[in-house]
């Protein structure tokens, strides 16, 4: 069964956030993630999608499945052409936890995902990349390696 390679979602208004995370959840469940992990992924998508809206106005989110021999994962890349982040370290600090102002959704997203990185500079927009992995059990690895040979 082929899983679509890439899901491209435009974020232009807050009505786009719920569908974006629903797609994230669907992709995660398709890949066999537990309900909990699918929720974590969906929540992380919600955080960075809102981050786009608040700081850049528009942007997009790309969801992708990732496959390695021992594990599979959901990759989420959020991109905007907004003003960029001057001080990434400061942006990732608290202000998020206590809810002062709106806070950036980035520290939250990082806590929910396994891999997380930000590429940003003033005037150059922001790209946030994150991945959540799921370890495949022995039977799955056996099945998929066999399918690879079969093709």
């Amino acid at each position: 069964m082929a899983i679509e390679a890439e899901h491209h979602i435009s974020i232009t208004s807050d009505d786009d956030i719920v569908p974006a995370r629903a797609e994230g959840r669907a992709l995660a469940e398709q890949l066999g993630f537990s309900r909990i992990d699918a929720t974590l992924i969906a929540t992380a998508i919600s955080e960075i999608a809102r981050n786009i809206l608040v700081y850049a106005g528009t942007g997009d989110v790309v969801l992708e499945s990732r496959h390695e021999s021992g594990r599979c994962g959901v990759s989420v890349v959020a991109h905007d052409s907004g003003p960029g982040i001057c001080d990434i370290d400061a942006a990732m600090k608290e202000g998020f936890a206590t809810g002062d102002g709106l806070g950036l959704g980035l520290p939250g997203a990082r806590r929910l995902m396994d891999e997380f990185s930000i590429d940003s500079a003033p005037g150059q927009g922001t790209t946030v990349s994150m991945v959540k992995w799921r370890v495949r059990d022995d039977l799955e690895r056996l099945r998929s390696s066999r399918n690879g040979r079969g093709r």
Partner: protein
Amino acid sequence: MEAIQADTAQRRSDAPAIDSALLRELVAYLRQERAALREEWASRITDAHLLGVMAPDEIFSETMAVYDTYVDALETGSVEALQAYARDLSERIIPRGVETHEVLGIVLLLRDVLARSLFVRYESDPALLARVLDSYEPAANRIAVTVGVSFVDERERVIREQQAAIRELSTPVLQVRDGLLILPIIGGLDTGRARQLTEQLLASVQALRAKVVVIDITGVATIDLTVANHLVQTIKATRLMGATAIITGLSSEIAQTLVDFGVDVSMIRSVGDLQGGLEYAERLLEHTVPLDDDEASLAG
């Protein structure tokens, strides 16, 4: 055989046609020799000590069916029927304890028995023999792979079903009385198991409307940092769902480990042993002791 030899000149351009005509002849021969070849195959199976769990008459009827399906697959080149048969066979023999190496073994033995008989029949004409093998071998090997894979697929399916059934049957969360659950944890905890226990605990809190949960870790010798954090997270999540979590059986070793790790222990409401924990839980349920809702909620 004459018809094939007459077409020598057209061999290259008509390669597929010759192959299929040759294949038809081979198949006709193998059907003709069915009784003798099946018999030989069956005795080779017994010599190799395969299918020990099956009785002789079972082996007889299974080898008869496999032989026919095998030759049909050779003829048609279609493995669907063979796959279906292999799945069906697997469903029957897996519960009997037949192993993968046995299934592969018998299919390969059949391949060899048939190959040998073709050798004997065509050995006087080496060129023809070569073409016979060119036709036979790919088909036979495809069959071997198909049967092997079907068997393994079926085994995996059975194993998964059994695993799911075991998981469903094993309920680590026990309801002591209305509103009170116990989760006794025994043995080593790794992240995977810890996460699974958390899921089951929270699902039980929701389904059974629990107010107090006693998590007993008397049977846990050591925990690492990840699991320790997991435990604290479970306590917080339980509280978010409106229940209070009590830890019992927290050894001094683990307590020290938690402090050393810098784990937020203010979240942990710990009572010495399980018995004490249950008594404390009863008092919580009777509201003689304040529940968590009167205290600070989950500060980061």
